[in-house]
């Protein structure tokens, strides 16, 4: 097991190099990021030249790339020696890391809530669909699964906004929280309100984004849980368990579900990073200020260090997601051994 993990972690290194090189190359193809600074009337040309020299941008492409790798690795492993993954072109004076740390709590809250929500919905419905195959409930579940998989997320988001935000007025139409809350009949600044009201207000703002973000996962997970359960409950050991008179509940949850969980765990591990991609769309729809928006701004605004840091963080998330899935696989299913 330890050998397996070591080997897999070592394999990540060439992947990291490849991904970062391609991204770095593509981002510089967009144009010279330092040239953009010259357009800003408040920044002097010699300052730009100094910055270019400081960040080794006056050197050839490959050398630049090498310095970027060096900076990224030092900032990641020895933060005190690094320069915070580079500086932001769009927000001069801020480091990439500072920008990301500002935005990430929002996206994490959104992503984790969506993940939990998707799991809580998909698992019971998937199981029900499998044990009552071809029942009306199964057909309804299947229809909803396909509904979720086929719905363009942002359009659905906008439609929900029209319905619940505008027509019915039940939910806010965007933003992370209301500026003024009503406490005991008087208007109070959001941060001065009691925490329970802050929490309730934030939760209210998160409902629609979470529903939209989890929609796609709910659909495909439901299908996976269903097909994985269907395969398991046809096995001989389930028949044996029935024959020896084990209660149905034990059969379902102890014998069947545990075995059906293995592929589902992989799926969840692999879908972690897609939440960030989903957040790019969801945050845009609900004007939430998180990683998704930062990504789009950085990438389109040619903010090279911020863009690189985000892409690399995301790539590392993908890589560790699949590694984690493989490890959990072995934990859940003792038949699996990695040699």
């Amino acid at each position, binding site marked *: 097991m330890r050998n397996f993990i070591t080997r897999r972690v070592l394999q990540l290194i060439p992947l990291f190099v490849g*991904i970062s090189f391609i991204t770095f190359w593509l981002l510089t193809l967009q144009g010279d990021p330092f040239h953009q600074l010259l357009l800003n009337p408040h920044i002097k040309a010699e300052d730009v030249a100094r910055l270019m020299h400081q960040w080794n941008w006056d050197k050839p492409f490959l050398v630049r790339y090498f310095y970027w790798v060096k900076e990224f690795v030092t900032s990641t492993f020895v933060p005190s020696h690094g320069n915070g993954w580079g500086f932001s072109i769009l927000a001069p004076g801020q480091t990439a890391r500072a920008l990301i740390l500002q935005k990430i709590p929002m996206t994490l809250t959104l992503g984790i809530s969506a993940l939990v929500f998707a799991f809580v919905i998909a698992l019971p419905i998937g199981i029900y669909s499998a044990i009552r195959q071809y029942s009306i409930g199964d057909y309804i579940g299947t229809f909803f699964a*396909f509904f979720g998989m*086929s719905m363009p997320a*942002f359009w659905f988001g906008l439609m929900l906004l029209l319905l619940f935000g505008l027509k019915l007025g039940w939910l806010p139409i965007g933003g992370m929280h209301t500026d003024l809350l009503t406490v005991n009949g008087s208007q109070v600044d959001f941060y001065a309100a009691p925490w329970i009201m802050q929490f309730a207000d934030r939760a209210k703002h998160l409902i629609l984004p979470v529903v939209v973000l989890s929609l796609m996962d709910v659909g495909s997970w439901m299908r996976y849980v269903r097909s994985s359960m269907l395969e398991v409950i046809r096995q001989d050991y389930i028949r044996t368990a029935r024959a020896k008179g084990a209660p149905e509940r034990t059969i379902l949850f102890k014998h069947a579900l545990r075995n059906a969980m293995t592929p589902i765990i992989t799926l969840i591990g692999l879908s972690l*990073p897609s939440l960030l991609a989903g957040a*790019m769309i969801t945050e845009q729809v609900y004007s939430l200020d998180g990683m998704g928006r930062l990504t789009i701004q950085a990438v389109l605004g040619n903010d090279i260090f911020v863009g690189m840091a985000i892409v690399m963080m*995301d*790539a590392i998330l993908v890589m560790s997601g*699949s590694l984690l899935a*493989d490890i959990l696989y072995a934990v859940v299913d003792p038949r699996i051994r990695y040699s």
Partner: protein
Amino acid sequence: MADEMNKNVTMPEPSSLEPMNDEFLQSTTTQSASMWSAVFRRLRRNKMAIAGLVIVILVVLMAVLAKPLSMGNDPYHMLNVNEAPVEIGRPELMPPMRSHPLGTDELARDAWSRLLYGARVSLFIGIVASFLCIVIGTIVGLISGYFGGWVDIVVMRFTDMMLCIPSLVLMVILSAILKGGVFQLILVIVTFGWMSSARLVRGQVLSLKEQEYVESARAIGASGWRIMFNHLLPNTMAPIIVSFSMSISGTIIHEASLSFLGLGIPQPIPSWGNMLTNSQNYMFSAPWLIWWPGLAIFVTVLGFNFLGDGLRDALDPRLKL
């Protein structure tokens, strides 16, 4: 990454030992023409698949018959003030009426004809981009699986790397560099979309190449390319067709998402994605504009998903896609 797992975790699947049903046996022993008729027979019994097929046919008809269906409206023509009814008084953002069933957009163009011509663009992108993804993925998968050894290692490491790239972010970068247009968008989608079919085909080839018919083909001196394209490729067709149908729906959604982020098909070419994006700004004053393109995307994608799901069940129920 995941292939290493498969190698180490292979367990005999009980279902593969079960006798196949008559129909399946019949379909594999006789000529391929009857295999397809058996597939179609099974497909016909699946209500969802038929619904999907009907939707897909209707959407294709919509795209093909865009001109006659658009009732003389030109998707690029901006109406003049005197072409608008007096009681509305402006040609832009007109609500639905008899001559313009879905109203007009912010530039006074007929929304119904744009929806029809948009079907052409969106379907074209969906089908062509998915087809290219599948072709590239199949070739890569065949070569990687058949030759094995260092070729396999190099090719699969590259595929893994591409899979680890956060593709939506890189798609945004690439489409910003290439700056709009139907073919540029297809290029962007294909660049980040061929990997899953490569993995799929490779997995199939790995198990197929151990079979006797491949060995006998090799024994009579068939070349590697001949074995790959004449013997292995036809046998991997089932999963390829299923993933093609599923990937069309994915591509249509990608086009819409990229449009939403401002990087899809540029104006004035109508596509469902950019119609949605534009009408978003008039969501409150002209909500009817945002309804139809979104609904069109949803229904089309649903159709392809239904069809793909039904095809999978009809071609090989054990297939996991």
